[in-house]
């Protein structure tokens, strides 16, 4: 559908464009019961986050520094720089407490819930990264916390389940559908509807109804705020490009936000190409999670945005070797920046991401999350194809890969990747 066709459809809302709308995306497509809560949250967002009422942002910044470990470094990747003949710098969100950028948002929202007088936190989680970050933030701020997680994910992400429990959170397995992130979000929305008056729902990415996409972006924007200053002082200027992996898009929006006005800085959002970009309409399955590249406009989990759906509008299952990218939607602001041409959507398949995982681990002594490995995979593919991504690039290292070891070993073996270290001698154990 062309731009003009879209306009003819006359989609518009009654809210001001600044108010939760990003071009044609955004909005608040939620059950009526939640609307008053969203209004309350909008109000709190404006007062506390945007206007720093009661010193909210000061406290947030102090806590994300002293508890979260910010600022994270911008470090040069010596061997990748040599390998690709360009200056590669890494923004180290893997060093944030909990091992990923997720805490920036979780801590911000749990603190906001406290300022709002809420008594309880709920959150969904897929791979468990947002759940563990939320459990940590809730424990730190003394808020009861319940995490909803698909049963399949509970079973395959046990270490993260244990971390949440150890931090004192309840973990509620969701026995619906495929038992993964999509179902967990829906279930958390339902639970929120039931208990909305005293509960805050900590959404895990720049998705969901307004004000979540804007608010989560603002909490994550500390990434690009720091990176931009660090680039100026360490590199003597802005980078030519910023590369970031995109699931829901929170690390992406965080890493891009302050660079958006810098038109000379190219922004690459790297999605999961999965095993293929083809979809199986019949089964309702996309063997990828390349929403920005292959999806189209629709309404999911409270927002109008780009998503993976079949021709009827049923949401398709997404698939990626990386659980954190395995989601059928994407944040509305990111969808808009892609429409505008400001952000370039690209994608990298499972195998390329696994290869990048190993390459970065042996080259740099950093074990990136499988999600992050997609960003490195694109750096590699663009360099191999001699694409002009610039002299100086920043890769946002959204998280660490300790959580992915089992998956990586299994998937690496399945594919017989040659670049990977041989683990077989340790598989069988063996006595003394």
């Amino acid at each position, binding site marked *: *559908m062309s731009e003009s*066709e*879209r306009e*003819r*459809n*006359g*989609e*518009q*809302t*009654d*809210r001001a464009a600044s108010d939760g709308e990003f071009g044609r995306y955004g*909005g*608040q*497509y*939620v*059950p*009526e*019961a*939640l*609307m*008053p*809560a969203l*209004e309350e949250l909008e109000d709190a967002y404006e007062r506390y986050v945007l206007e720093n009422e009661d010193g909210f942002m000061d406290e947030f910044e102090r806590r994300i520094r002293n508890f979260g470990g910010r600022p994270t470094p911008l470090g040069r990747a010596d061997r990748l720089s040599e390998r690709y003949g360009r200056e590669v710098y890494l923004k180290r969100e893997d060093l944030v407490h909990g091992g990923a950028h997720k805490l920036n948002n979780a801590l911000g929202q749990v603190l906001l819930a406290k300022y709002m007088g809420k008594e309880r936190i709920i959150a969904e989680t897929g791979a468990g990264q947002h759940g563990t970050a939320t459990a940590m933030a809730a424990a730190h701020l003394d808020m009861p916390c319940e995490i909803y997680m698909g049963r399949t994910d509970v079973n395959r992400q046990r270490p993260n389940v244990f971390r949440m429990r150890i931090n004192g959170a309840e973990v509620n397995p969701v026995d*619906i*559908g495929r038992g993964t992130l*999509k179902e967990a979000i*829906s279930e958390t*929305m*339902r639970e929120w*509807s*039931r*208990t*909305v*008056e005293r509960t805050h729902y900590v959404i895990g990415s720049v998705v969901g109804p307004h004000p979540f996409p804007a608010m989560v972006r603002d909490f994550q924007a500390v990434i690009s705020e720091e990176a931009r200053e660090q680039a100026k002082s360490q590199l003597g200027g802005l980078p030519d490009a910023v590369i970031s992996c995109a699931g829901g898009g929170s690390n992406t929006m965080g890493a891009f936000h302050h660079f958006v006005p810098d038109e000379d800085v190219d922004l690459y959002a790297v999605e999961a190409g999965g095993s293929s970009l083809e979809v199986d309409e019949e089964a*309702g399955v996309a063997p990828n999670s390349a929403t920005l590249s292959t999806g189209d*406009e*629709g*309404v*999911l*989990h*409270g927002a109008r945005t780009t998503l993976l*759906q079949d*021709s*009827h*509008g*049923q*949401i398709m299952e997404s698939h990626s070797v990386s659980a954190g990218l395995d989601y059928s939607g994407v944040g509305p602001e990111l969808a808009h920046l892609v429409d505008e041409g400001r952000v370039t959507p690209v994608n990298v398949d499972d195998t390329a991401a696994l290869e990048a995982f190993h390459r970065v681990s042996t080259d740099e002594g950093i074990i990136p999350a499988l999600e992050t490995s997609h960003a490195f995979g694109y750096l590699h593919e663009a360099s191999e194809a001699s694409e002009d991504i610039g002299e100086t690039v920043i890769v946002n290292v959204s998280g660490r890969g300790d959580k992915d070891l089992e998956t990586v070993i299994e998937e690496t073996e399945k594919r017989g990747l040659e670049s990977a270290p041989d683990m077989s001698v340790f598989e069988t154990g063996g006595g003394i």
Partner: protein
Amino acid sequence: MGDTSEAEPDAIATAFEDESAFVPYLAVGDPTYEESLEYVEALAHGGADLIELGLPFSEPMAEGPTIQQAVTRALESGMTPERFFEFVEDLEVDVPLVCMTYYNLIYQYGPSEGPQSFVERAADVGLEGFVVPDLPAEEAGPLREACDEFGLDLVFIVAPTTRGDRLEEMMDRVSGYVYVQARLGATGARDDVSDQTEGSLDRLAGWEIPKAVGFGIKNGEHAERISAAGADGIIVGSALVDIVAEGHEEDRPVEETAERLEAKARELKDGALDGTERLPEPEHP
């Protein structure tokens, strides 16, 4: 229903005329197209005044587990928006029919995006209106316009949390009836019927439009109490879907399940009728 039983333009208003309307919900295509036809017709025989037909969406954000499972069964048996419209055409009932679904299906339908195509087709097959649980009044502009264009009603849900400005905005835009959510939470049959119902009905006292109360109504006694509290109708979903699910799981003959549905419908309708004839019982005797 197609040409056999074309309802009049004021069909919804008529359905609420006796102030004790019974409004059942079923997921269309649950567990199969054919069975589902029988079940909806059984509800009509049992006394339904208006029927909410659920067009299954893969992410039923507002539903409890009972209806989620119904939706899953219906999708697995191949239900699509097009099949849904065929279903409406095939139905042999003469009560007004309302489509309950999520906005993405309405938005995606037809050659161009936006709700027009869907609404046009709905009008075509004789549907009277829509309930869209993930479309609050603020986002309903385009669908409202399309409904006006094709003469269909757009029902809004009023929740226990809805107050002040938002109520007024909704009053301006609602048509057909208002769906009064009896308590917080997703749909699902409950043993208790919430105290919040009366409060909600009080807040809507000035509204001209019929007020149907749903969420958690399970039996005739509930229906009676809600009705006695001043509701113009009672909406029942999960308690009926439970019968379908049970029939499916226990492999009952279709007729048996249809009979049980009809009996349940009768119980609920009778409860609603009784309620309008009595004073409200005290909630805490």
